[in-house]
């Protein structure tokens, strides 16, 4: 029973990792940029929602929606104003740019909202559901449900809408997509917007558990491990990678000595990279001689 309990908790945690990782992968697939600031976008999204719901007293769902819209605009402008300029420079420059962006966002958030940890009262906070002997916190269920709904929505979006198809096309081959009349630049900015929305959802779902402060973005590093394990290519693989990290980490935290929980995700990632450098579920390969 305890094991099952742990697995549910781990799944919930893994869903959040998966969501953040999804943000990385969306951007990477489309623009080959690795966004090291994804965790900080999540932090920003959580703070936005906190402001709308906690400070301004709006309805939870309305605040959630407003935060997502604001973050979408933020992501769009981020790409259109800053990140687009760097295309064509080595990948390394992009890594540095997004890392520094993360620093700036964290510092900015600390400036606006302060560095203290804040409590975000959501409808899911501190409520439980009993299933037989199993006691499930509603927060965990909301994380899992939120991820499932989002995954379904993304599937529908990518396969059945024009914009979604255009995004797929431009991520497969930008030049060809451009020749077919797809506005690649705008599509890339829209993908940043989408990724910011995903980050916001991750942040808001996570906030009842981890509370909100400017440094929760560091969770993004672990989500990286999830993305790498998933292979940085397939969206489903990424969520699975998140689940693997979340569940194994929770189990390790229970059954192994302290300290292993913090680094297990990285050990797992290094092991995966050693065996399959392109990730477990990857469909992409690197150029070779």
């Amino acid at each position, binding site marked *: 029973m305890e094991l099952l309990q742990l697995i549910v908790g781990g799944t919930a945690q893994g869903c959040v990792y998966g969501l953040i990782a999804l943000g990385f992968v969306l951007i990477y697939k489309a623009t080959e940029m690795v966004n090291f600031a994804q965790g900080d976008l999540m932090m920003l999204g959580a703070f936005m929602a906190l402001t709308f719901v906690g400070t301004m007293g709006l309805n939870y769902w309305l605040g959630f929606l407003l935060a997502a819209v604001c973050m979408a605009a933020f992501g769009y402008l981020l790409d259109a104003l800053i990140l687009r300029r760097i295309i064509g420079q080595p990948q390394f420059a992009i890594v540095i740019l997004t890392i520094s962006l993360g620093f700036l966002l964290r510092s900015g958030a600390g400036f606006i909202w302060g560095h203290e940890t804040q409590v975000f009262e959501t409808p899911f906070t501190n409520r439980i559901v009993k299933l037989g002997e199993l006691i499930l916190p509603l927060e965990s269920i909301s994380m899992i449900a939120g991820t499932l709904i989002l995954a379904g929505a993304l599937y529908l979006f990518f396969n059945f809408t024009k914009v979604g198809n255009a995004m797929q096309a431009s991520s497969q081959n930008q030049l060809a997509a451009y020749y077919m009349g797809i506005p690649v630049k705008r599509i890339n900015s829209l993908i940043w917007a989408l990724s910011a929305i995903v980050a916001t959802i991750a942040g808001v779902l996570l906030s009842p558990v981890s509370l909100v402060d400017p440094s929760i973005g560091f969770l993004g590093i672990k989500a990286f491990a999830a993305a790498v394990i998933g292979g940085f290519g397939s969206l489903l693989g990424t969520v699975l990678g998140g689940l693997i990290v979340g569940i194994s980490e929770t189990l390790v935290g229970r059954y192994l000595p302290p300290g292993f929980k913090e680094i297990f995700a990285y050990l797992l990632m290094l092991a995966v990279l050693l065996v399959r450098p392109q990730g477990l579920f990857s469909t992409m*390969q690197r150029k070779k001689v």
Partner: protein
Amino acid sequence: MRILFKTSYLDDIRLFPHSGYLIWYGILGACLLLAPLVLREFHVGELSQVFILAIAGVGLMLLIGYTGLASLGHGAFMAIGAYVNTYLIAKGVPFLISFPVSGLAALVAGIVVALPANRMTGIYLAIATLAFSQIVEQVVVRWESVTRGFQGMPVPAPDILGHPLTQAWEFYYLCLAVLVLVVLGAINLIRSPTGRAMVAIRDSEISAQSLGVNLVRYKTIAFAISAFITGLAGALLGHKLKFISPDAFNIILSIQLLLMVVVGGLGSIHGAIFGAIFVGGLPQAIALMRDYLPAVIARTPGLEPGLFGLVMILIVLFEPLGIYGRWLKIKAYFDYFPLYRRATFKRQRSYLKTERVR
């Protein structure tokens, strides 16, 4: 403008291409040697800090700037250097032995990292080194019998042949000597076949491989040398701080090192030094600025990392060649005086060249 007439390969790889170099570096060396006589103790300490950063910067520059391998985990090598050095000194090993051994320990760690790292490139490598630094941080926190965890360890003054270097100026000369040795070593490495192979890997792995460069071997060598130098810098940093704890070597340090090589200018030893001066001087500049800024901004705790971030963004966007690149541009402007063209330093590529195939 001076035109150098080169008649042999040796002319091309000379340490000082012409007498101007000897004169200017001679003046610089003399100034640095005389600095402790003129400066106050606080500034001598700050200068030694800059030297230590510059040593680590040279180490990282060899990896990032000359071999093209990104590392986000060099703070971990500094931590290894510092902890090994301190542990050995606490066990009674003299500094002259513990210091190189701390570098060697980092070197071994570098090879261990390089083994999986050789299979990765670009972002995967950056992420793997980041993971490595997180793992090292946890090990330092948890392995309390050796590292004393969060309690930290005091670091005694370095002791050379029975003479402890307790004065700030003595430590200053130690750092200066190590820096000069490291810089000379790095320059010599770059003009040797090994260095040429590293540069070839940076410019194109595929063409380097086609020309017979053993990628695995040279990448491992680059990692090992870079880790060795960074480990030495870590040992010195421990002595500078006089007390080491896991907090001193967190991810922020790794990112500061990265900032150094980027701001200074990738692909030049000058860049590492300029970057160290920048990173070492920025806290002072911020401290000075605090008096003039509005109180609300000046008292924000996270000001420094935020400013670091802002500077890095501006440099990556507007001056990808860094401070050294700007210096080259200014020099070229006066060299070619009325004929300088902006396009000389223009970026060649302005489109996305994909790294992947399907």
